[in-house]
């Protein structure tokens, strides 16, 4: 039996999966409404974005420390390539999107307030040009992120239902730790 991701890695993966999906839906929902829910949505979006940024840093550390289980040798080369490259895209977006959002707010001279009273400092000076670049990046990368999540889910289910090669279980298992799995 192949080993799994560590329990902390699995916990972070699933917690962040919920947070990131929530983030994408909140983002696309809040910019398309003028209803009173706009305000709690955007407040949640800001706070959750910073939470994801912090969790992504922790997760990157865990990944660096514990790595990932080996892929089954039966996997075809293109699938192996996709499996090796997709974490780079995920980590880039998990770290990049919150930073772009924070920088975009800074470039527009908005106060950046979490939970109603925690103020974060601006990370860029006010600038129309930077704001425009970051705003467009935030929007297009959000759609790219959602597409990546959909492909990721489809690939996970493909491993679980069609190939049944144990890859899905390396992240999905609920065993307490990897020692118990071996």
């Amino acid at each position, binding site marked *: 039996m192949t080993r799994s991701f560590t329990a902390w890695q699995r916990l972070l993966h699933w917690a962040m999966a919920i947070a990131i999906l929530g983030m994408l839906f909140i983002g696309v929902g809040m910019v398309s409404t003028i209803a*009173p829910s706009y*305000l709690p949505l955007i407040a949640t979006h800001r706070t959750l974005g910073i939470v994801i940024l912090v969790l992504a840093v922790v997760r990157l550390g865990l990944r660096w420390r514990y790595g990932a289980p080996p892929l089954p040798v039966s996997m075809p080369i293109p699938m192996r390539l996709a499996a090796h490259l997709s974490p780079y895209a995920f980590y880039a977006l998990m770290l990049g999107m919150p930073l772009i959002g924070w920088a975009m707010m800074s470039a527009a001279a908005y*106060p950046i307030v979490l939970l109603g009273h925690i103020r974060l400092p601006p990370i860029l000076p006010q600038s129309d040009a930077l704001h425009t670049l970051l705003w467009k990046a935030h929007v297009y990368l959000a759609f790219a992120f959602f597409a990546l999540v959909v492909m990721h*889910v*489809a690939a996970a*289910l493909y491993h679980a239902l069609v190939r049944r090669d144990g890859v899905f279980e390396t992240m999905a298992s609920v065993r307490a730790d990897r020692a118990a799995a071996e």
Partner: protein
Amino acid sequence: MSSGTPPARARTLGSFAAILVVAGAGVGAFAYAAGWLTPDRLTPARMLAALDGPKGPALGHRRNHAKGICFTGIFAASGEGREITRASVLASGQYPVVGRFNLGTTEPDSPDATVRVRGMGLQITAPDGAVWRMAMIDPPFFPVATPRAFYDLQVASHSTERGAMPAFIAQHPEFRAFAEWAGSAPWTGSYAETGFNSLDSFVFTDTQGYDHPVRWSLLPDATVTALTQAQLAAMGPDHLEQEIRARVAAAPQSWRMVVTLADPIDQTADPSKAWPEDRRRMEVGTLIVQRIEAERDGPCRDINFDPTVLPDGMSVSDDPFPAARSAAYARSYNLRAAEVRDYPYQRAAATEASR
């Protein structure tokens, strides 16, 4: 085992179908959240399109209240407001402000006397970094009761159909009071002689945690001289900006900020209904405008006077307008910041160039 046997093949097909259903459901839910499946949803984009009307936007400018001029100065808080809010910005002291006098028009080159509604954007920054932004206008109440009605008003006012406005007024009787104000209230020849009102209700929270629903106004200290629309028109198309520049250069101009506290029976959700005159009022400070700068290179142009940017101790009420304004202002800001090369927009030149 080969997947070629009939039961195995059926199972594989079923698995692919399940994967497609999951992915499709995800994409569908995303499309719904984005409003793509509900074209009736009032989005910021639709609100701005309604404001633009058939002529389209003045690129690079605010999508409403497009004509304006920047000011800076100080807010001298009396400290009295601390009774009803823990916000540091109302603690006794002097705090820097940046603001913008403006006209409620989508055309930055509208002649002053053609615009009935005047506005003020204001930002006060407390020493601890807390920021309070406001966007106020001079009518004593808002023209309509809901953001949807405001959207309908834009559509009706741009409509070429006969009877569009009468039909709108029949559906939104609250608009009559505004029309009466617009037709009968005197004009003035100066921003310094204009009072500005929050109209929307907000909630102040004191140090004990008690909530106080409020509205506020900035009342001019300058002597108000009533004018007719024709008298203002005779002063020239940009009189207000020229006048306030000269006036502030000669002496700082001031406004008293008066906060009105709601009685429990007062409606906070409907800014088209003024509260009775006898409500408790508190003078929480004085705005002192010390310097005027052209919008083009001024400190106010790239600030979004979003009325939901509130310090700790202040929050929105059940009034639906601040959220709607915040959503629409954010889109207006994103668009105009990206169109900065078109600023200042010359519609005549742009129309000529596109021919």
